[in-house]
């Protein structure tokens, strides 16, 4: 069995990178990928913590939920990006000035 600490370290690093991508990048598609990375970091933590749980599999069930939520999020976000691109003509978050409140 791999020490749970190692899973937590990988999850933490992945979460940090994902958060940085969400905060720093200007392309909406990059932000979407950053969110995927954050959700994956959470999944890694859950799976790593439930390694010895052979009966209830709680962590794995939770991870399945996370995967479903991530898929839903990607679908809705992509629909929004399509509309946004059609209306604003750009996926650069800095150019989407119309969303500002005066």
């Amino acid at each position, binding site marked *: 069995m791999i020490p749970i600490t*190692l899973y937590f370290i990988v999850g933490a690093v992945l979460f940090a990178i994902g958060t940085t991508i969400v905060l720093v990048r200007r392309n909406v598609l*990059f932000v979407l*990928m950053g969110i995927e*990375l954050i959700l994956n970091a959470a999944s890694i933590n859950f799976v790593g913590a439930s390694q010895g749980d052979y009966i*209830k599999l709680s962590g794995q069930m939770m991870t399945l939920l996370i995967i*479903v939520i991530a898929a839903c999020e*990607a*679908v809705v976000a992509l629909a929004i990006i399509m509309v946004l691109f059609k209306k604003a003509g750009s996926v650069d978050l800095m150019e989407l000035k119309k969303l500002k409140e005066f």
Partner: protein
Amino acid sequence: MSNILFFFIFFSVQTIGSAVVILFTRNVMYAVTALLSSLLGVAALFVLAGADVLGVIQIIVYIGGVLVLTLFGVMYTYQSPKRYQESIPHKKSVFILIPLLFVLVLLVQALPLLPMIDDPYQHASKVEVTGMLWLTEYLPIFEWIGFLLLVVLIGAGWIGSTLVQEDKSKGEQV
């Protein structure tokens, strides 16, 4: 260093390295490819933790679904061809050396220890247990997931349909 631990470190380096590539690259296409690599690494980490079902689901849902959707987004928001061109050509030796190195390292580690019937694999496959749990103890959650998916299906279709309606009204004006 135990065998399992080596593979764990290998795949975590793959996952984190690809994430760093997403962080630094300016090309959206490279970023999607790096995301593919990162998600594959996460699937491998799941398998190493004994969650074989989750590894398969990760590959099916993420790489078969989410990644293709993201690729569609990249294609849809395509603007200028220069963004997808490689400005600095790599040396050909790099393309040969890196895969060789990987294969060498993997073989050196894996071959002497081929009967890997150790750690997570001493327990049976999780497929049966997972299915039983979903249809007994976690049945309400299962139903709610279905409901959520229905809501997302209708919602995303509705958001997208505003585009179609606008196109139609524009067509009528012209």
